[in-house]
């Protein structure tokens, strides 16, 4: 990768203008409804300049500070998932004609997205969803159409929230790959790293300066500051076996007493990908839309089958979520399903913190019954083999 360079802050406006000129829908952080959300951005004026957020389990606040920086906050309730994998999507339709039923696959033409302000953990989350939607035997056309044209401007965190634990998950706070451009905000400019040739050409007409030693060390210090502010930890050593060997741990009952099974954690999680598909007919029953909507393992009816509901209590639903995210995800997609963004902790209405739940299980070995020896789950049992062709 080439040497980073420096631009004045106002040059970001020219980059935004250029993206808009080239037909991109620029999406970035913006203060709306008491939070920093990802919305359409027309210029730097829309960015949350001087805003800071504070987060703790079950609590989020955003407030103006006397700072001047554009990116001195962390994550809000939105993630980029909502653009690449829309909450609601019509996937196909069928219509009754004189010659029987006529089926159509709905192909939409989404806008070209430019994401501005993607954090390291979010880059990792996009890579996780790439594996889910693009790299298995079934490619998701809705996701693919959006993902392929998306231009990514990442931002290195210079502060961290109390809920962040990217350092434990090995995903941040420094953006290492999967971006077109990455910015680090200094007091007097942005350090720009170029990740792709597309990124390089997008900044070709900006006023670019060579980065001097002072800027390089400022940038280092600010990134180190974010690292130092991260206090939350999750011990991931042997986490897959730890959880799968403790399916009968009494702590699942403890968390079930608190968990509302409300689905918020899965909705805000940037990697959760579950959906349900339903057919919706018009009144006369001759026009039917097949709709896909975000769904969740915390929804009691999500595991409803012909023989009944598989996960019929909160305990089994919370356990399903945590063991999928942190354990069986490894078998299915060769990675953790958690990138350490902390959204599920902040946006849980009763402040349930997965890192605390894992620690509770780790700290109280459950040994008053003999556990069956857990064999490593073979890939074939969890997912289609990589070379499987439908």
């Amino acid at each position, binding site marked *: 990768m080439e040497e980073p360079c420096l631009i004045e802050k106002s040059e970001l406006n020219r980059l935004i203008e250029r993206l808009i000129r080239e037909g991109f829908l620029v999406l970035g952080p913006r203060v*709306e*409804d*008491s*939070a920093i*959300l990802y919305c359409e951005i027309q210029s730097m004026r829309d960015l949350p300049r001087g805003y800071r957020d504070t987060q703790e389990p*079950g*609590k*989020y*606040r*955003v407030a103006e500070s006397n700072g001047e920086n554009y990116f001195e906050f962390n994550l*809000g*309730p*939105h993630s980029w998932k*909502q653009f690449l994998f829309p*909450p*609601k999507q019509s996937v196909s339709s069928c219509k009754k004609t004189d010659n029987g039923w006529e089926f159509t696959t709905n192909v939409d033409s989404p806008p070209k997205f430019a994401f501005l302000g993607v954090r390291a953990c979010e880059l990792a989350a996009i890579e996780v969803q790439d594996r889910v939607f693009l790299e298995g035997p079934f490619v998701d056309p809705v996701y693919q159409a959006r993902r392929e044209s998306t231009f990514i401007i990442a931002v290195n965190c210079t502060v961290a929230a109390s809920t962040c634990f990217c350092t434990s998950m090995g995903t941040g706070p420094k953006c290492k790959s999967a971006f077109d451009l990455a910015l680090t905000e200094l007091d007097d400019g942005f350090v720009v790293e170029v990740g792709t040739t597309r990124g390089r050409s997008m900044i070709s007409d900006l006023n670019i300066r060579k980065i001097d030693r002072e800027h390089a060390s400022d940038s280092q210090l600010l990134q180190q500051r974010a690292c130092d502010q991260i206090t939350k930890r999750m011990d991931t050593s042997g986490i897959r076996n730890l959880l799968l060997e403790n399916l009968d741990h009494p702590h699942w009952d403890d968390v079930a*007493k*608190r*968990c*509302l*099974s*409300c*689905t*918020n954690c899965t*909705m*805000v999680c940037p990697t959760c990908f579950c959906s349900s598909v*339903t057919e*919706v*007919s018009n*009144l*006369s*029953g001759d026009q039917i839309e097949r709709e896909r*909507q*975000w*769904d*969740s393992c*915390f*929804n*009691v*009816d999500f595991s409803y089958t012909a023989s009944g509901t598989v996960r*019929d*209590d*909160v305990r089994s639903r919370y356990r399903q979520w945590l063991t999928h995210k942190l354990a069986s995800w490894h078998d299915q997609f060769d990675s953790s399903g958690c990138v350490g963004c902390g959204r599920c902790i*902040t*946006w*849980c*209405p*009763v*402040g349930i913190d997965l890192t605390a739940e894992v620690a509770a299980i780790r700290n109280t070995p459950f040994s008053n019954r003999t556990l069956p020896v857990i064999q490593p789950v073979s890939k074939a049992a969890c997912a289609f083999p990589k070379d499987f062709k439908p």
Partner: protein
Amino acid sequence: MGVFKFASCDGCQLQLLSCEDELLSIADAIDIVHFLEASSHVEPGPYDIALVEGSITTNVDRNRILEVRKHSKYLVTIGACATAGGIQALKNWGDRSDYLRAVYARPEYIETLSTSTAIADHVKVDFELRGCPINRLQLIDVILSLLADRAPRTPRHSVCLDCKRRGTVCIAVAQDAVCLGPITQAGCGAICPAYQRGCYGCFGPAAQPNCDSLADWYLAGRATPVELVPLLRNFNANAPAFRECGDRIDPFLDSGGTT
């Protein structure tokens, strides 16, 4: 189809009338033979579908619902009154004779039970449609599902799922609002949080609601029992999950409370 009213405000029946466009198509597919809100012309049963609005608060109604049941193939209750007893179930916590004396000049003319109860407490109900008032799109779907012999699309999950699908910022987390969304069944489209108001619980308890956990969280600093109890005791006061939680945290409740 017949539409029958018990103790209620008529709001749910009005949802059927406000189906305007769809009503014509519905009327093509089914004969509405008893619907006093729309027409004084009524025909006797039997009915394939009986839509029942309202709760049981009098002896007369207790007998009338038995008759409706006897003449109906599918009995569908519509709204919080019919499925949980409605706002009038607040009488279940009070003394009937006190209310009668306070409201009526000649209480001896009033014949009423001491409780307001759901239709399902009296007869077998085939399907309960929630809401105060019901969502007309859900009503249409229930009618369509009966015509097509399929399950209706009336999810049992929390309001939160719909809140997140529409991109609303959670006001419980971002503004310390007291919101019943996590324990309330979806169906309204998560309207209130989108207008910065906590969910009032119009659609009653969601499936397997953890009311105690949410109540304890709110009581730890955000709300007092005096604020929280009336929220749990509104349109769905007598729905068992809300009733039990409200009774548990009610500081004024003595043994004379509801059963």
